[in-house]
């Protein structure tokens, strides 16, 4: 038995079984949630690098598995991340049932997660680009279920994500060449340009992010945000792999100012576009872009604190976006998801409305919510370099908060103030759980985040 078999092989096998059973949505739902919780618990509690004592005998669990001459390694440092991914997978697949996501969501979503784990594990890590592309292809039937019109956003998503793969693969070759011949400036230039373009396509970096609002507004927002978040999280981890592996990249004079500039542009432009929106699904996309911008800003600090903030952001982002997209999709089942359509919904669907506000304001960095402590810490560190680096992101965040206030006014505004609660029990369960966790993470960040920073143990050079 090996770790890749547990977190890659079994989820792939399970996704095939769930695909066969996909018409029995109830069964699929229960199996998916139970299995994701099991995978998460195994990731958190299974000891790495030593056999497991099963009472009667010792079960050896290897960290690596060799496939066609290449190694897949999931060691101790990866376990925290796997645990988080599968725990949130349980929440996301459970939420999928609540928002009546299409039948492909759970089985193919499990495949995406298994491919994500494979991309995390594969050595050399450059091959991860191919696995990411496979995950993108698998995600197409989730985003565009059979019988529904195919929209432009999906094509753009597919094109941009596919364009990234060649750039990353060739950048990998160029990076290797730079390591071998550090005195050649043209190789360095070539590697940096290719790498920058590849990651820009993958992460919807400014100015390549126009596909994201289209995709999220034209598909199920809950499903789209799951796919985008999953892929982005993996790509960010790959960026750490690159930084860890190549000393010339870590010591580059250009990299960190460029990350700071692009990150700031993403945060500011996403914030400004948000203010002018009516459609909340587009706002959800802009908050995803803004979060990517903040991750780049965290990387731009170029110190261990920056990497710690970067790693901690994953958890806060996942739970806040999950809450935002879940509540938005639930509300979208009853009304058009725009400012006009949401009028008076605080009295009809109070829990969904509060969750929407929690998610939206949380992404704007409002105090007491999950993202706030990390944003504060990040801005403090940015301001120590220069005050301007902190002021621009604050403008972006303020734009989101202003939009949040517009939504609040719309939710409260109603002629009929008879109170009802139209959410179903399962919707109420997931919304309450998400809302509580967002507050818990915001008020007691030290309960959750330090353990999550163990993720950085895998990257020996990022100290």
């Amino acid at each position: 038995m090996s770790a890749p078999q547990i977190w890659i092989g079994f989820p792939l096998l399970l996704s095939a079984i769930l695909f066969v059973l996909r018409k029995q949505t109830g069964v699929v739902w229960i199996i998916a949630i139970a299995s994701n919780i099991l995978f998460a618990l195994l990731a958190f509690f299974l000891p790495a690098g030593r056999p497991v004592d099963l009472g009667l005998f010792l079960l050896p669990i290897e960290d690596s598995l060799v496939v066609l001459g290449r190694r897949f390694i999931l060691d101790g440092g990866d376990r925290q991340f796997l645990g988080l991914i599968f725990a949130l997978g349980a929440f996301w697949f459970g939420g999928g049932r609540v928002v009546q996501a299409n039948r492909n969501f759970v089985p193919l979503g499990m495949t995406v997660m298994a491919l994500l784990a494979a991309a995390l594990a594969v050595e050399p890590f450059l091959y991860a680009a191919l696995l990411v592309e496979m995950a993108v292809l698998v995600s197409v039937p989730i985003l565009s279920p059979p019988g529904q019109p195919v929209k432009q956003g999906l094509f753009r998503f597919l094109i941009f994500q596919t364009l990234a793969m060649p750039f990353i693969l060739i950048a990998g070759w160029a990076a290797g060449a730079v390591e071998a011949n550090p005195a050649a400036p043209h190789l360095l230039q070539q590697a940096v340009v290719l790498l920058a373009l590849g990651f820009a396509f993958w992460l919807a970096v400014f100015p390549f992010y126009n596909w994201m609002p289209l995709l999220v507004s034209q598909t199920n927002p809950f499903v789209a945000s799951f796919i985008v978040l999953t892929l982005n999280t993996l790509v960010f981890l790959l960026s750490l792999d690159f930084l860890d592996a190549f000393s010339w990249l870590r010591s580059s004079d250009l990299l960190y100012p460029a990350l700071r500039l692009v990150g700031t542009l993403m945060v500011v432009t996403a914030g400004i576009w948000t203010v002018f929106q009516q459609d909340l699904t587009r706002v959800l996309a802009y908050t995803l872009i803004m979060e990517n911008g903040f991750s780049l800003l965290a990387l731009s600090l170029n110190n261990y604190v920056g990497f710690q903030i970067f790693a901690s952001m994953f958890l806060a982002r996942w739970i806040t976006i999950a809450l935002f997209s879940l509540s938005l999709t639930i509300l979208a089942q009853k009304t058009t998801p725009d400012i006009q359509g949401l009028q008076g919904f605080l009295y009809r669907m109070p829990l969904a409305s509060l969750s929407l506000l929690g998610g939206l304001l949380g992404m704007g960095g409002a105090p007491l919510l999950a993202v706030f402590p990390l944003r504060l810490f990040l801005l403090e560190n940015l301001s120590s370099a220069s005050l301007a680096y902190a002021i621009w992101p604050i403008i972006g965040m303020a734009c989101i908060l202003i939009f949040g206030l517009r939504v609040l006014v719309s939710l409260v505004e109603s002629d009929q103030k008879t109170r009802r609660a139209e959410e179903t029990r399962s919707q109420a369960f997931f919304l309450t759980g998400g809302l509580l966790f967002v507050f818990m993470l915001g008020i007691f960040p030290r309960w959750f985040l330090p353990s999550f920073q163990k993720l950085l143990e895998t990257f020996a050079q990022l100290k």
Partner: protein
Amino acid sequence: MIFQRFSVIAAAIIVVCCLFLLVSRNWRQSILAFAVLYIGVFWLTALVWPVGLAVVKLVVGWMAGAVLGATIQTETSPFQHVELRPVQIFRLTAGAVVIVLVFALESALLEWIAIDPVVLWGAMVLIGMGVLQLGIMTNPFNLFVGLLILLAGFETIYAVLESSVLVAGLLAVVNLGLALTGAYLISSQAGEETA
């Protein structure tokens, strides 16, 4: 070796097929051109890889073409709309611009990636034509053909840099996956139009 001596023919095949794909109004002819194009891709790859391994590119390309072709229903073909001659002339001109651009950039590109000029030239034409298809075409068939052409161009360059069997296999899976995804979306679109 025969592939090396007549490698210019491979580049010529690629240019002709790419231009034909830009202006074609008949899906059967387009699929045929797509299949012939992969002979050019195979030829260029065979210059740097063993023929046995390079054949993978040919087989995968043909399979991708077959998958895309099998999805098109004649009555809902994306080519049924009559395209005007000026549109074709525009596309042909744009294609010619791409070819000239690749000619112009060839020496600069050779400084970046020092490989056989014919391989680089053929690959860059494929990439340029793929980007052009993605930029000016709107129907799913052409978009996926554009993506596959673009990837074929990249793979031709990458074959010089990396000869791992695992990479060849994974790229084959990506190509077939792309074709299957294209087939899925084309059939979804067609179903929606006939409904």
